[in-house]
């Protein structure tokens, strides 16, 4: 009886995985076909395998710069988000102070704000500051939703560490910075991993703000991709190739944090 149940579950899982992977496979499939083949014939795998689209992306600056820009501002964003979130999460987890619950909720509300609401104000704000079309602008803009998320996740993990550890460290004569860096941070490694993963994820995939705040120098790949319509029609092949390449950093990140995801959530805000 158990065996039948087991097989039913595996079957369902398999069915879902097919559902999940098929569209991605299709895009990969298309990225290796020539544009003519895409429009003319319909095949499950490329008849005339070609790397042309990928070559174009790696050689054409307007394409590969998109990736570099994206990686740049995402990295800046993750670093800043974690740097400011760590002390804040510690404060929320260990102390109670005037207005703490309200500030915490206010932070979460920022995660709930529709980016569309901020479109125009951001545009004006960053123009005024002279930060338009820079990586730092997008990185700062993304802090809006990433910092609250990072604080939320880290606070959950930190609450799981008994306060006795802090107290023991103080008794042993550790200064706060030393205690934080050498003792505390290693204990919440999983939490930092999960927080970094989510910050990376939400910043990497965001389009609206990234496109609004950039034009040439810091144009991210997501914006570049929305501009592939040319006179000869949609360049499906290159579009598909670009799409495939945007999945690569994500897949790498998830490979590195795969152990933390399961372990990590478990210890966190659950």
């Amino acid at each position, binding site marked *: 009886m158990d065996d039948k149940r087991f097989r039913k579950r595996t079957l369902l899982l398999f069915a879902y995985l097919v559902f999940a992977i098929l569209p991605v496979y299709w895009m990969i499939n298309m990225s290796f076909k020539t544009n003519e083949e895409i429009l003319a014939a319909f095949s499950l795998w490329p008849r005339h395998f070609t790397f042309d689209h990928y070559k174009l992306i790696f050689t054409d600056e307007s394409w590969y710069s998109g990736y570099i820009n994206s990686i740049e501002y995402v990295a800046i964003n993750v670093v800043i988000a974690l740097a400011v979130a760590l002390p804040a999460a510690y404060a929320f987890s260990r102390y109670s102070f005037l207005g703490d619950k309200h500030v915490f909720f206010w932070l979460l509300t920022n995660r709930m704000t*529709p980016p569309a609401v901020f479109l125009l104000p951001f545009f004006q704000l960053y123009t005024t500051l002279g930060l338009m079309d820079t990586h730092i602008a997008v990185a700062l803009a993304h802090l809006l939703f990433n910092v609250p998320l990072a604080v939320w996740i880290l606070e959950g993990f930190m609450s799981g560490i008994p306060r006795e550890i802090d107290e023991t460290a103080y008794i042993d004569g550790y200064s706060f910075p030393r205690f934080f860096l050498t003792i505390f941070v290693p204990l919440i490694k999983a939490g930092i991993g999960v927080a970094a993963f989510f910050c990376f994820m939400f910043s990497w995939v965001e389009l*609206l703000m990234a496109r609004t705040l950039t034009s040439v120098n810091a144009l991210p790949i997501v914006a570049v991709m929305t501009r592939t319509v040319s006179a000869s029609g949609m360049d499906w092949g290159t579009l598909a190739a670009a799409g495939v390449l945007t999945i690569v950093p994500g897949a790498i990140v998830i490979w590195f944090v795969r152990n933390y995801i399961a372990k990590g959530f478990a210890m966190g805000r659950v």
Partner: protein
Amino acid sequence: MKPVNQKAWLMILPVVVCVAFSAILPLMTVVNYSVQDIISPERRVFVGTEWFKQVMRDDDLHDALVRQIVYSLSVLLVEIPLGIGLALAMPAKGWRASATLVLVAISLLIPWNVVGTIWQIYGRTDIGLLGATLKGLGIAYDYTGNPRDAWLTVLTMDVWHWTPLVALLCYAGLRAIPDAYYQAASIDGASKFAVFRFIQLPKMRGVLMIAVLLRFMDSFMIYTEPFVLTGGGPGNSTTFLSQYLTQKAVGQFDLGPAAAFSLIYFLIILLLCFILYTWMQRVGTVSEGQT
């Protein structure tokens, strides 16, 4: 009990500054716009609640709001049970667990416009697998022309895109359940369904609340994916709130009404999420009393 320490404010100051910069400043601008009529950069007239009244009476807005609510509810109705089921089906240990995790999570890491693009291609009857298959089966399918097809495609795309988030959260919740519970249940002679109902589901309450909260918020704010896939069409059958707002603000440059609507939009979400959040906290404190 946590010790009181007002100096903790120093530790949260960087966060407050960052978020305030990104949030309060723009918000003030929006408030500013919402109560003025900006005819030209030099001429601004204070109009008070005029825009708000106009926005509230706007039929297009009502339609978009209804559309959005139906959409968000449909999303929750499909993604939550599917996510739970997926989490239950995923292996718990070993290389199979890691491999499944990576495969399941891939759709979460695809930039949202690429998600739109993937489905845009996928659904076309000439070059897409889904479109061509449906056409081959004799089913009339046209997501650009037929509102019902557009709706279903957008919904399926969202399910494809975001169910893994629910699944991953539930998966983590399941992994947190100590073996002893399953052992005790086996000793008590509990059926598989009883184990789900009395052990797994209650223990997943915390993560489920987070999942419901996140999915509701995000689906209410959805912009990129439907925009890329259908552009809001055909007509405005898939124009949800965010796109409606963007059209108003950027497309028509109706800054006043757009700003007014932004605030209303924000407040709606805020209210709903406050309710969900308080509920989550209450459930959280009950479960904190447990081991």
